[in-house]
């Protein structure tokens, strides 16, 4: 008589979904809501256990931040994220300080804007001219030069423009403009801005560049497009090297001073934006220029590609670079 089982399937779904958090817990997936009390206290509880190890690895001169915990938002560029460097540095930073870094990769413009609105705690970008405006406006403070890599012009192996033979950047660009195609980022990123500056410096109007297209995407995607279309593009060396094995593109011009790609890290002004996590952000800036970190940056992927992706620059000034 009592065989009425109305909600069995609903109960089934509920049971399955109820299992999920349990599974997630097993998976050690413990990030959510970083910065809330529970996370912080867990880390605080483990502080004593790992403090010795942390201080051992980061021993000596640089001011080693104590375990701070919590979380912070780092606004950076897609090219930085695509290089994979932060995948190494962020866990290391977490190990040393207990701070969770939420890396948000957007275009340079958007990253700086996040800083200006106080939507991020620290900013890691590579567009010195643009950065200056935000520093002057007081949105970004405590800036430190971290490292540089450089931009290179890449193109198909056949090099129809003979850009490899060019003696300077201007003649290389002139040759490419005449043959095309050229793939531009077109996404208001640092690389895109650099490309526009470069054409302007060479005195070439964009309309005079044969088959110039804008991908509107990140560097990796843009390189893929250039590869597919046998075109030229301006790329940071890091992204190019990391993707090189999948591309039939070669470096056709490099080395000129104006092609340097200089990375700086900033704290978003805690005075202007009260929600900014000052301690965490300052710890991150300190970490990025700490000797151990700098050493690691210089060695990043060196073995794999046979050359450094990034040249550590802590303590230098922009003027000293590329000379």
């Amino acid at each position, binding site marked *: 008589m009592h065989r009425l089982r*109305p*909600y069995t*399937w*609903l109960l*089934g*779904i*509920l049971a*399955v*979904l109820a299992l*999920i*958090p349990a*599974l*997630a817990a097993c*998976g*050690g*997936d413990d*990030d*959510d*809501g*970083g*910065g*809330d009390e529970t996370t912080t206290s867990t880390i605080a509880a483990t502080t004593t256990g790992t403090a010795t190890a942390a201080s051992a690895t980061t021993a000596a001169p640089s001011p080693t931040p104590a375990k701070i915990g919590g979380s912070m*938002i780092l606004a950076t560029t*897609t090219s930085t*994220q*695509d290089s*994979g460097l932060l*995948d190494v540095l*962020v*866990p290391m930073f977490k190990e040393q300080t207990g701070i*969770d870094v*939420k*890396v*948000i*990769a957007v275009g340079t413009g958007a990253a700086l804007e996040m800083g200006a*609105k*106080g*939507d*991020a705690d620290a900013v890691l970008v590579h567009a010195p001219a643009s950065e200056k405006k935000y520093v002057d406006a007081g949105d970004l403070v405590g800036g430190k030069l971290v490292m540089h890599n450089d931009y290179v012009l890449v193109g198909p192996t056949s090099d129809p423009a003979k850009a490899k033979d060019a003696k300077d950047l201007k003649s290389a660009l002139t040759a490419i403009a005449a043959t095309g195609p050229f793939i531009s980022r077109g996404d208001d990123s640092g690389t895109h801005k650099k490309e526009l500056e470069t054409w302007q410096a060479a005195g070439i109007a964009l309309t005079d560049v044969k088959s110039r297209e804008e991908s509107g*995407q*990140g*560097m*990796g*995607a843009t*390189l*893929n497009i250039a590869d597919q279309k046998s075109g030229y593009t301006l790329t940071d060396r890091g992204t190019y090297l*990391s*993707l090189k*094995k*999948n*591309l039939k593109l070669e470096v056709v011009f490099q080395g000129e001073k104006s092609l340097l790609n200089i990375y700086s890290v900033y704290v978003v002004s805690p005075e202007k*934006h009260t*929600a900014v996590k000052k301690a965490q952000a300052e710890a991150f800036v300190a970490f990025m220029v700490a000797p151990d970190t700098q050493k690691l940056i210089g060695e990043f992927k060196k073995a794999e590609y046979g050359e450094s992706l990034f040249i550590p620059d802590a303590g230098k000034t922009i003027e000293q670079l590329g000379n």
Partner: protein
Amino acid sequence: MDAIWEGLREAIRLIASGDAQLREIALRTVLVSGGATLLAMAVGVPLGYGLARTRFPGRTLILGAVNTGMGVPPVVVGLVVWLMLVRSGPFGPMELIYTKRAMVIAQFVIATPLVVGFTAAAIQALPREFPDLLTVLRAGPLTRFWLTVREAQLGIMVAVMAGFGAVVSEVGASMTVGGNINGQTRVITTAIVTETARGETAGAMALGIILLAITFAVTLLLTALQQRRAR
């Protein structure tokens, strides 16, 4: 073509070896999208029921809004949720942005109109006499709701499948509000974007296959249930 075969081979190798990161991303995807779907059900099924079973001024307006909601691009939802949750937004102090919770919220917003719309349609497709029958049987309000949902369960399972399918395969909103943070908010779809950008097509393919497997498994499970019920 070579790239595709190589990608497939690598995908199978990665899946077979039970790559820890892959497993973690897949688990997170199910957690986030499953949670969002569950919430969307909890809210959407009663709402759909209310919409199907009551007459009030402005009902057509709401139905229209729901049907529009079914077509709003996830990226737009992501943008709006981002503007709400971002630190300079109205809910900034809650520090939800770039967390799984933020992704659940965005996916919930995407899935709910689907659940509401499909549920209302399923309930309205019941026999015309059905609500009267429940009145005559003197079923209480809660019993009415459960009995109606039970009668419309096949249609409501379609609603759940549609909701889960929409959010698990969605990339725009997850990317915007979750930030695609490695180890925290990276789900299968956003990971595919990253892997592709990095030229790691094999990894991207592996993730794509897992995503397909998850959606297929969930749909299969629900379809099997549905067919057993419909027998």
